[in-house]
């Protein structure tokens, strides 16, 4: 099968102004910090970012926020990033807050080629406001549209050059869902191996969902244990 190894700068250069970008990670584990830094360096603007959380001030997606590259953020929690809260309150970015499992399921639905999901989560809360309500078999429910994106930025522990990926411990989180939901998925990996070097049963994301894969020469400090 074909090799999808691509230099990071070349792969990220395809992300233009106005693109929608899903970014894996929950806290530090699974966040593709090097891909985010490259996106910050290249500077595409007016981005829609879809990410579970806004990281912490000074790291990860916060670099894009500080650079004013983000027009819209779809997320479940930004409470650990005072900078993101300030930008939201100042009206400088539009923030759509989504219940965490519903965010995951909307992305999964996008990746599964579905139109959306129907759920009772959030009934009677501010999250139901303005949404399409359905009544099915006497049960009230909310229609939540599927989420897809132009690009996904992913972090794998191990990959082969076809793009088969596996993730470490809690670094899996949103990565496999986003790999499926994006039109073009970019995966940075800690270890890159040749085809045949991954155990097929241990592949978490099939390479068919991955368009570009790149090995990190080293893991910068930001990936390591944080002392608070």
């Amino acid at each position: 099968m074909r090799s999808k190894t691509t230099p990071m700068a070349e792969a990220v250069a395809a992300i233009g102004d106005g693109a929608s970008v899903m970014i894996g990670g929950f806290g530090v584990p699974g966040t593709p910090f090097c891909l985010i830094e490259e996106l910050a360096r290249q500077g595409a603007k007016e981005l829609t970012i879809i990410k579970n959380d806004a990281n912490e001030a000074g790291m990860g997606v916060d670099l894009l926020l500080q650079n004013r590259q983000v027009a819209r953020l779809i997320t479940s929690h930004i409470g650990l990033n005072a900078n993101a809260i300030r930008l939201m309150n100042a009206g400088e970015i539009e923030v759509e807050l989504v219940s965490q499992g519903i965010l995951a399921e909307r992305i999964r639905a996008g990746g599964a080629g579905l139109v959306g999901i129907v759920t009772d989560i959030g009934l009677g809360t501010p999250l139901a406001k303005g949404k399409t309500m359905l009544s099915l078999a006497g049960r009230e429910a909310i229609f939540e549209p599927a989420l897809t994106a132009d690009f996904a930025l992913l972090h794998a522990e191990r990959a082969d050059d076809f793009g088969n990926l596996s993730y470490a411990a809690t670094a899996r989180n949103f990565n496999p869902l986003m790999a499926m939901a994006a039109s073009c998925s970019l995966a940075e990996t800690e270890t890159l191996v040749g085809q045949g070097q991954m155990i097929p049963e241990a592949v978490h994301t099939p390479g068919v969902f991955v368009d570009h894969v790149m090995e990190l020469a080293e893991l910068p400090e930001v990936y390591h244990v944080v002392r608070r």
Partner: protein
Amino acid sequence: MSSGAKERMLARAARDIRPGMTVNLGIGLPTGVLGHLDAGLPICLHSENGIAGVGRQLPYAEADRNLIDAGGAYVSPVAGTSYFDSAVSFSIVRRGRLDLTLLGAFEVAMNGDLANWMIPGRFSPGPGGAIELAQKARRVGVITMHTDKSGRPKIVERCTLPLTAAGCVNRIYTDMAVCDITPEGLRLAEIAEGVDPDRLQSATGAPLLMPEGPIPTF
């Protein structure tokens, strides 16, 4: 609240975690229950970021950079731990596979309504997983100080803040009491040692139904 009263509250909540349960402990006070659980208790702790089988919190020197709980604490695995993606993690929640979740609260009402994720104009970090936990766990316990820093009751007749979920709470653990949400109303189950029932009622924003006979203490 003295640290003694807080620890007593956490220890009391821990006693309702029984062998065989699958449990999610919310961020903040509920995580403190961990310190009161017998290490050998056969339970499965779930965390939203994709683990079933969360072990003890680890100091930095022993931490694995890829293994945190949903609150960001470094944790250890246990024998039998599994990892999964966020869609699977919330399938566990929404399918009703959590026997119990313990959550914090800004306000909890006598009818079981819970508000714990948003204070309009002041605090809107996003819901995280709180709504799904509150709405779908088979049993929801709230752990909170009985009054806020200004002395106002946190147990109220009706929530004034946006709800996390309606009618979801079964039991409330505070530094002063354990109360159950029942069809008849808010029922006092146990009172903290040394707390007077009249003082408890005046610190509570909703009428308390008294148990039959003497009030058990904890």
